[in-house]
């Protein structure tokens, strides 16, 4: 028996629907069809009336979720691709994200965003939206990198009383497999040491954790022991775990698939420099996608986003500083 990242997401939703009558799923093609990626496969028949196909109306999808949340429901919204959440952006950042602060009424919504690049997907089916949403007060932004986290963090997302932007990486959907679903897990808000090391720390999240682990492996024969921190959530950031790792290694490289400007990697570096300047033996570095839309052609795409090779090269440079 093995379970993929995608199946874990399906299972978590089945679990949530089973356990909590307040949960329902809303999104394009999520019903009988089971969603564009099959993340809601069979859920419509297992839970009649609770998995609803929406019109192609992202703004209204999000507005409806806010209304239902006010009434005590726990909507799970699937955006067909993270990129299309921009059409529902107003409702997410101005309605869902401000409700609790303005009225003391919580807004428990889980917005599932299939995100990130896959070869040949081009500028409108590849975007990373995590740092955009993290910028707004009132949202929690999760970026699971493993099958186990995809499952446990999605369950936790549904239980959280606030709007959660759940970033599920499309590249990991089928690639990533685990033996079984987890019975316990780190809570949301805690980062994880994905690999221990003494010479430098790479902080990454989502698909980039796997590229970072590859890079760390590549550097082992050269005598370097690289520690990899899987952030797990981009908001909140577990600054303590990052700081403790940098305290051990003295060197920091942050890797993100999103664009760099004002991004999660910038945020981590800002925190480490302001709070832990003395821990650093070299200037902290970061590696992000290039500052252009995500290109279609695989040759361009491979050069646009950080890969294990590019991470290893950046790490070597930092190790020599």
């Amino acid at each position: 028996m093995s379970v993929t990242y995608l199946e874990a997401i399906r299972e978590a939703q089945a679990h949530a629907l089973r356990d909590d009558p307040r949960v329902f799923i809303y999104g394009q093609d999520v019903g009988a069809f089971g969603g564009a990626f099959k993340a809601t496969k069979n859920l419509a028949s297992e839970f009649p009336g609770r998995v609803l196909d929406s019109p192609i109306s992202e703004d209204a999808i999000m507005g409806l979720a806010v209304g239902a949340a006010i009434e005590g429901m726990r909507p799970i919204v699937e955006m067909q691709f993270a990129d299309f959440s921009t059409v529902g952006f107003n409702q997410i950042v101005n309605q869902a994200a401000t409700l609790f602060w303005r009225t003391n009424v919580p807004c428990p919504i889980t917005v599932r965003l299939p995100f990130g690049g896959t070869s040949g997907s081009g500028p409108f089916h590849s975007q990373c939206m995590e740092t955009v949403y993290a910028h707004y007060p009132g949202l929690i932004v999760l970026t699971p990198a493993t099958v186990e986290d995809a499952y446990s963090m999605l369950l936790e997302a549904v239980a959280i009383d606030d709007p959660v932007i759940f970033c599920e990486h499309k590249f990991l959907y089928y690639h990533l497999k685990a033996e079984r679903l987890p019975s316990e897990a780190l809570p949301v808000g805690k980062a994880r040491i994905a690999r221990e090391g003494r010479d430098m720390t790479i902080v990454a999240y989502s698909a980039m954790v796997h590229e970072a682990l590859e890079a760390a492996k590549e550097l082992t024969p050269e005598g370097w022991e690289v520690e990899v921190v899987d952030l797990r959530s981009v908001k909140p950031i577990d600054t303590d775990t990052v700081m403790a790792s940098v305290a051990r290694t003295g060197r920091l490289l942050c890797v993100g698939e999103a664009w760099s400007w004002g991004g999660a990697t910038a945020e981590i570096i800002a925190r480490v420099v302001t709070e832990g300047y003395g821990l650093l033996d070299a200037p902290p570095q970061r590696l992000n996608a290039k500052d252009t839309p995500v290109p279609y052609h695989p040759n361009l795409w491979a050069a646009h986003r950080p890969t294990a090779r590019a991470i290893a090269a950046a790490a070597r440079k930092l190790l020599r500083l």
Partner: protein
Amino acid sequence: MLQTVLEPGTAENAALFRETYLAAYRFMLLARLLDDKFAALWRSGRIHGGVFLGRGQEALSAATGVSLKKGDVFAPLIRDAAGRLAFGETVRDAARTYLGSALGPMRGRDGNVHRGKPREGYLPMISHLGAMISVVNGILLAHRFKKISGTVGVASIGDGATSTGAFHEALNQAAVEKLPLVLVVADNQYAYSTPTARQFACRDLADKAPGYGVEVDSVDGTDLSACLKSIGQAVAHARAGRGPRLVIATLLRLCGHGEHDDAGYIDPQLKTSPIGRDCLKVAEEHLVRQKWADATTLATWRSEVTHEIEEAIAQVQREPAPDPFAEEWRAISSRHLSETHADNEVDPA
């Protein structure tokens, strides 16, 4: 041009209609066989990402393309191979975008159906549905500012995309500004897997138009003659300065949403109903019935078109792919305002 064609009676008009019909049919055939070729290339792993066909929608799309002329604006969508070709796109440029040639209009930066030449009035769609309509409005308004008269803009849209806010905002906008917009809805009964019953509750999509003060026409999207007349009239109407029009074409998507999709969800009864007719066959029957072509001519055209496609694809396959080292990674035109800072440039593979 077409408005005269639509008034039968004179021999001249009849001849003109025949000529337009034949031209449109030729684009339908070209689009169908080109789509088939892309599907085959995709199955053999030569195309990255998705392939989206216009099978069953060629009559409507070709009618749109042939109704426009140079200087007009066209914002096609995913099922518009025929209309794109009729509007002047070459088979080569279509293939270059699917195959990611560096020599194509999108230079490998964007792919498949996301292609166009904005300065030539051929708009490159973004994926976000409904987003192109107001852009057409903007071009038409700019024409007004620039005192360019007599141009028309057409935007294509699907039944599903009529649920976007963008659709409603743009239709209202065109009506308020009385822009020469023709908004063509291909109601192919499904938006991916979602049937129209889960998309809207109005009896007929045409009912949406009066609320915005927009004229509307409904047409059988499987019938090329009907499409030529309906779109031709809407275009003539807009060209004459009489404001926007919505055209609702009823038809059926005769393929998956993309080639990855077996479309098992399509109601079999729809497939055998009149809207499930294959518009290409319907057009061929019409050609034969009118004695505008016989079986031999049709076969000759088919082999000519096949040859044209094979030649173009073979050439494009020899063209260079984009080179990440030569690529200029810059997203703004103001070179002097580009970010010069890069902490750790991703090293091209």
